[in-house]
């Protein structure tokens, strides 16, 4: 444990003060007596691994979580944040990772949602709104059309609209949660400019990110959280990469990411994908296809990475492979040389494909049921005779899953919802391993789990690959992707742009290929022309 380093300045002009904030979700403690200070006009980076509690802390400040312990002062006044309205009234706005805009409404309608400019009693004055919106958006370097629906804008532009919305609400404190995760390099640069301008005008900005380069370039102050606790705070001069990483991870990076990858060139091909495509169910001008021209093959024991920005079509690719988009998808998929039809997850399961989804709580687990009931779900038929489940085999399956994957639980009947994130993830993977799959699709397998559990998942992925599974890995964390993968296919807006082998891995290369308008490897651009 590192003691919180003292801030040298006197705490005047404190825009936001959070004192002793604690939060538990069921049995897991997410925040433990965290203090957080924010001065007016500063850019304050909040850093930490996934699951460190940064988003939770800021959601409390923004009134999105109504039950917490601790005190919040805005401009010196005590506030109890119970709803987003409280936060708006206190001048706090949060821009979440998933933008909260109404896609069908126009830019100005979104900006003035809930505080429309009206002509008489209730008739909306669009002209005035458009004018006012233009006024707000001008300094933000916004290029889109204001009377256009949000859905037609690019993600970067949508983000500017969110900022404008916050400004119209007279926010003095702007919280941004991973704002660059879907942005190209140029858009990121522009966003930084906007943030600096706002800070100069006295807006306090909390910038949540785990991208080191951005933080070092942008922030005045850096606060690091780990496992729900405040680890340290430092001003920009003192902040350096190495120190921040040490604080975030709690030990030197090499310990966690230690791995030896062996190159094997002649592998038996397990999964072959040809010309995978997926139509956009709500086609926009920019995108009629969510995925197109995606072809790759994965050998036995290979970990094949899919890289890309948010919305690049990585998750959708996995979903198509698992038969979740019948009718709108196409392409040829072979498992161990046999062509398979993918209309339902039942088909995929029968073909030996398993999918571990990115949101284990939403898609992966029945949270209100025990470990045993979750583990057996995909293979229940095999332990039943005449439709009746054998209780002994049920228990045996649960015990085996707990043992093999090292799930920490009080027993096979513990509810899945009360497990920690890491153990939940192990349970989801364990559930699928019981089906004896040939192909394992992993979507963000370490999202929201602590560092220790992360290392265990990495080890598990390594072991499974050694046992001959073909693994397709999607991850937004480039260090994770480059560490685990044997090859990486980079996607950009649904199209493949590069296939990289291990010696070509670098964060800069991947980002370059992943950015819209960035480079494309010749092999892939030729394919485009041929079409």
């Amino acid at each position: 444990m590192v003691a919180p380093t003292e801030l040298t300045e006197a705490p005047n002009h404190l825009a936001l003060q959070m004192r002793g904030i604690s939060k538990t979700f069921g049995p897991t403690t997410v925040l433990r007596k965290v203090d957080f200070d924010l001065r007016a006009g500063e850019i304050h980076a909040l850093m930490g691994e996934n699951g460190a509690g940064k988003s939770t802390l800021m959601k409390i400040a923004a009134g999105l979580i109504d039950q917490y312990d601790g005190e919040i002062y805005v401009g010196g006044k005590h506030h109890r944040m119970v709803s987003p309205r409280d936060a708006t009234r206190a001048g706090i706005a949060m821009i979440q990772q998933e933008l909260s805009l109404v896609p069908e409404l126009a830019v100005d309608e979104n900006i003035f949602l809930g505080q429309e400019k009206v002509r008489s009693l209730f008739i909306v004055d669009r002209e005035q709104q458009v004018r006012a919106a233009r006024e707000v958006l001008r300094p933000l370097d916004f290029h889109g059309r204001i009377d256009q629906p949000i859905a037609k804008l690019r993600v970067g532009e949508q983000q500017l609209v969110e900022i404008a919305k916050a400004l119209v609400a007279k926010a003095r404190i702007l919280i941004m949660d991973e704002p660059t995760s879907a942005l190209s390099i140029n858009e990121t640069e522009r966003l930084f400019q906007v943030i600096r301008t706002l800070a100069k005008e006295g807006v306090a900005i909390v910038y949540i990110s785990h991208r080191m380069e951005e933080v070092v370039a942008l922030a005045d102050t850096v606060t690091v959280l780990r496992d729900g606790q405040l680890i340290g705070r430092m001003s920009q001069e003192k902040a350096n990469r190495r120190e921040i990483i040490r604080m975030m991870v709690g030990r030197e990076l090499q310990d966690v990411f230690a791995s030896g990858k062996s190159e094997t060139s002649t592998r038996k091909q397990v999964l072959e994908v040809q010309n995978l495509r997926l139509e956009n169910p709500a086609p926009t001008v920019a995108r009629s296809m969510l995925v197109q021209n995606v072809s790759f093959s994965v050998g036995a024991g290979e970990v094949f990475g899919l890289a890309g920005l948010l919305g690049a079509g990585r998750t959708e690719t996995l979903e198509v492979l698992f038969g979740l988009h019948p009718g709108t998808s196409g392409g040829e998929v072979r498992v161990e040389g046999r062509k398979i039809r993918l209309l339902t997850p039942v088909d995929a399961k029968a073909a030996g494909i398993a999918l571990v989804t990115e949101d284990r709580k939403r898609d992966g687990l029945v949270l209100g049921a025990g470990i045993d009931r979750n583990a057996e779900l995909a293979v229940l038929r095999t332990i039943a005779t005449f439709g009746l489940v054998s209780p002994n085999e049920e228990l045996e399956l649960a015990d085996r899953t707990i043992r093999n994957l090292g799930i920490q639980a009080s027993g096979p009947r513990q509810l899945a919802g009360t497990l920690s994130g890491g153990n939940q993830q192990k349970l989801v993977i364990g559930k699928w391993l019981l089906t004896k799959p040939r192909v394992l699709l992993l979507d963000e397998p370490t999202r929201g789990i602590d560092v220790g559990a992360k290392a265990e998942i990495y080890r598990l992925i390594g072991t499974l690959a050694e046992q001959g599974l073909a693994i397709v890995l999607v991850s937004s964390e480039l260090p994770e992707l480059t560490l685990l993968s044997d090859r990486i296919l980079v996607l950009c807006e649904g199209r493949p742009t590069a296939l990289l082998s291990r010696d070509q891995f670098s964060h800069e290369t991947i980002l370059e290929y992943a950015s819209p308008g960035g480079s494309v490897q010749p092999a892939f651009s030729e394919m485009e022309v041929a079409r």
Partner: protein
Amino acid sequence: MKRVLTSTRNFLLQTKLFWGLAVLYLVGVFSSPINRKGINIFLSPGNQSDVLRQVSNNGIIAVGMTLVILTGGIDLSVGSMMALGSVVCAMLLTQQGWTNASFLAIPVLALVTFFLSAYLVPLIAINAVRGSARPMEKANPSVRWCGIIFGAILAILSVWWTVGQLGTKFGVLGVLVAVPAVGLVFGALNGLFITKGKMQPFIVTLAMMVAILGIARLLGGSNMAVHPVYTGTNATENFDILRALVFQIIPVPGIFFIFAVLVFGFVLKVSTFGRYIYAIGGNEQAARLAGIRVDQLKIAVYAISGMLACTAGVLYTAQYRQGKPDAGAGAELDAIAAVVIGGTNLMGGRGSMIGTLVGVLIFGFLGNILQLRNIDSNTQLVLKGGIILAAVLLQEGQLGVRWKQIRSYFKVIDSGQEAGAKSRQVEEASK
């Protein structure tokens, strides 16, 4: 010591439903009028038997409703389904030859026989042949053809058997097979619209509730058609069995109810079907992604609900000696209330058949107690509504958490005022 306390507390909390029933029962015993012979009327065998008779129709429907609600759905069409069952049953019993009812029932029965056999025969064959070994996920084509042929033979047999009864009117067994089959088909239709049409269960079953009521009235030929079953000579004599008392104390409808509770309680507890129902209600997406045929299962659940509702219709016809299109008015709400009192979560995934049994009994005993006290029927409605709210508050309301929230709310107001006062003081001081 503390451990004993907490385990006692947990035990009491887990069984609070039964304690509620026990308390209500005691209230019944002590509030009951006593007749001239000094017998407690509430406790008299006749009264207990009557309660069971009164609850059994609602109970049978509630069993199906439990399955539906456990998947996270709702079935509003059961009342109309019961009315349809009642009308079809009465018509089959009293009218010879091809009537609207037999025209509906016979093809439907053949259809149900065919599909059930075509589905079940391969399943049983695989399980039987492989013995204790594991069944395959899919039947191979030859086994499937066996099922289809077997189903076709059975369907033809069913047509032959039912058409044979047309000349002499249907017997008890005839209506007990044909009428539930009608409910099964309409219930499956509910499920088809919900799963394949991707519509809300509430809307679909609401529409079906209206439509089926119309069908029930149309079948009879007039709006308020009542088909007397026992008047005159045109009745099927042995139909009286369905309202008889076994051992002079247990009403036959009660046996149907208990049987349904046992069968479907067992299915929920130990079968794959039951596991899947809980999984779908707990997290439908997770179930779908685990390769479970969610649509098929949901259709089956609604079909079962419809089948049970029509069975209740048959019992209604036997009980009141008439088939009525308004037989099941409000039955869906009573069933939902019983299921919810029994602790089954309307969002799905949590609940049990034993809870529904207790819920049905609580509802039934409450009505009985109020009746014995001669309480005005409108007052009864108010009290029933109150009981539903109270029961659900106990089950779901998380009273402890709510209490904490209310307290913290007042704390905030206090501290907010304090903070306000302090900041005013500071402001004044700085001036």
